[in-house]
């Protein structure tokens, strides 16, 4: 695995002492998290524990009450300035794709490329078609408008746009929700391939236990307004009742006892 960037020792993301409040409701209270470069981190937690809020805070969309966040060596400023400096170095796939409805899928993918500037339009078109193929969309989806796509296709198109400039970090908000199982595992494969080839760092909020077992190096569980981070093996033995419930529920057992998962856990253990 290649490690991109100037200082490979630096973690991709550090979150220190994050406190998020909505009115009187405290969502995160002193949350610390470090994401290493090149790792795939799964973020899980019950409804309303602030998984999406955490992603939005890291990429600078949501200002926290307290805390410091560094993304790719840049302190996140929440006034848009750090986002501008980091443009093109990270990508985000929103839950519903968040495609620009007035543009075709191809044009959507070209938006970050145009913003970067200096890319000839022929090459831009070629790269847009490449990304469309890369995320497993049919070629003719390029010229379609988001309203003509199904939910799963929108998601793929959203990923294609997030990957437009080959970012170093990709944030995925429930990428496999709403995909059929075949599409979901193809998506998992795609993420693994991209990580292998590009040293991509991936932070994904997911409820897909298969994805967790198959591609995530570590898992961050949001409990008690903080995160517990560990590999699947470590978390299975964690005493917290929610984590116990999560990793020992019937669905979890079915997912983790699948052969691929068993191999993976075995390999990590040995």
């Amino acid at each position, binding site marked *: *695995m*290649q490690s*991109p960037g100037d200082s490979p020792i630096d973690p991709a993301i550090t979150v220190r002492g994050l406190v998020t409040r909505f009115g009187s409701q405290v969502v995160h209270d002193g949350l610390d998290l470090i994401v290493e470069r090149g790792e795939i981190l799964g973020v899980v937690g019950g409804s309303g524990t602030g998984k999406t809020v955490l992603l939005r805070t890291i990429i600078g969309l949501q200002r926290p009450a307290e805390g410091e966040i560094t993304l790719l060596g840049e302190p996140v400023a929440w006034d848009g300035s750090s986002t501008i400096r980091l443009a093109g170095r990270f990508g985000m796939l929103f839950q519903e794709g968040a495609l620009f*409805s007035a543009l*075709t899928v*191809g*044009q959507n993918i*070209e938006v970050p490329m145009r913003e970067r500037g*200096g*890319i*000839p339009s022929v*090459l831009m*078109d*070629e*790269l*847009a*078609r*490449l*990304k*469309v*193929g*890369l995320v497993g969309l049919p*070629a*003719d*989806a*390029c*010229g379609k*408008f988001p*309203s003509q796509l199904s939910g799963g296709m929108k998601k793929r198109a959203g990923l294609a746009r997030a*990957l437009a*400039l*080959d970012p170093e970090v990709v944030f995925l908000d429930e990428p496999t929700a709403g995909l059929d199982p075949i599409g979901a595992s193809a998506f998992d494969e795609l993420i693994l*391939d*991209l990580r*292998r*080839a*590009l*040293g991509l760092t991936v932070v994904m909020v997911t409820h897909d236990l298969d994805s967790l077992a198959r591609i995530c190096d570590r898992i961050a569980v949001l409990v008690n307004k903080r995160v517990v981070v560990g590999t699947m093996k470590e978390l299975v033995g964690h005493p917290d009742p929610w984590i116990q419930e999560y990793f020992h529920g019937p669905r979890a057992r079915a997912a983790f006892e699948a052969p691929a998962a068993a191999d993976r856990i075995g390999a990590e253990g040995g």
Partner: protein
Amino acid sequence: MKDHTVADALTVETRDGTLVVRLRGPWTLQTALSVDAAIRALADRAAASVTVDATSLSRLDSAGAWVIQRTVAQFDRRGVPVEIVGLDEGLQAILDKAAEHDQSADIAPAPTSSLLNFLERLGRRSVEGLHTGRNLLGLLGVVVVASGRIVVRPMTLRGTAVVAQIEATGVTALPIVGLLCFLVGVVLAYMGALQLTRFGAANLTVNLVGISVLREIGILLTAIIVAGRSGSAFAAQIGTMKVNQEIDALETMGLSVIDVLVLPRVIALIIVLPALTVFADVAGLVGGAMVCMFQLDMTIGQFLTQLSAGVTVWSFATGLIKAPVFALAIALVGCHSGLGVSGSAESVGRQTTRAVVESIFLVIILNAIFAIAFAKIGI
């Protein structure tokens, strides 16, 4: 023989008719941009075979991989065999990914500017307009049947919803309706006074203001404001419910959308619009009276005497008769547009705009029909 290098990333040599292409360092978007022109030119060169040496390729992103694959494909098409040697296994995956896709698809939608397109759009719009008319009539029918049920069994009317709609469409509209009609009354009286004084007929300003406010301005202005405020609100509320599948949920529970959403709005607006019209009439007359008092030195008594001589009960009634009809038109168009929302949030905005445009259009058309009808029967 060393041919050329581009930023050290690409070195090309010819060795016994074989083109040896050496890739060095990271091949990312930045590299792809700097070698794009050179590598496009490379693809046109004559060669018996091509060897790509990727031994010192350190990184590869999809842009870099694409530029390589594109060139390989170009040689392939010419029948020149290409061999890639020394490629890191991890990078092979992304290179393979870059190969398997179709480059023929259009990015931008096909341009639409020909005459044929114009005609097609015109035809489409016309048919759409007719459909809208037919569907509106359909909705009118359904609403009439539903209100018939209410007449038979008054307890089935959703009273709370009606009252809530009366508040939303009527009470909160009072300030804006009052202010606008007052100002229009002022302007009308002022312009009338300026012109009529020259003919020594300053008194007729009162008749001018009285008749125009009571017959036309009061109701028309109110209807247009309500169309803009409430017609659009109906479309947006019902449209949003449609997007959230709330309409589907209602129907699944066996509740009729007409009874729950449409009828309360229609009834509320039919009650509200005449009331607002009366309020608007008063505001307009107050505006006119103020100008008459300050500009023409009339007393309030003189104004009222002149007004009662100038206008009849019918002047007031013709305005008021129109109100329920306009209300029905505005409510139906608003609800119809809302129910016409399809899927996306974008369509809510489009349908809301349509609701306003169509209901104002309809109000003005109906007003013209009323004017002709009233003239024919002489009131």
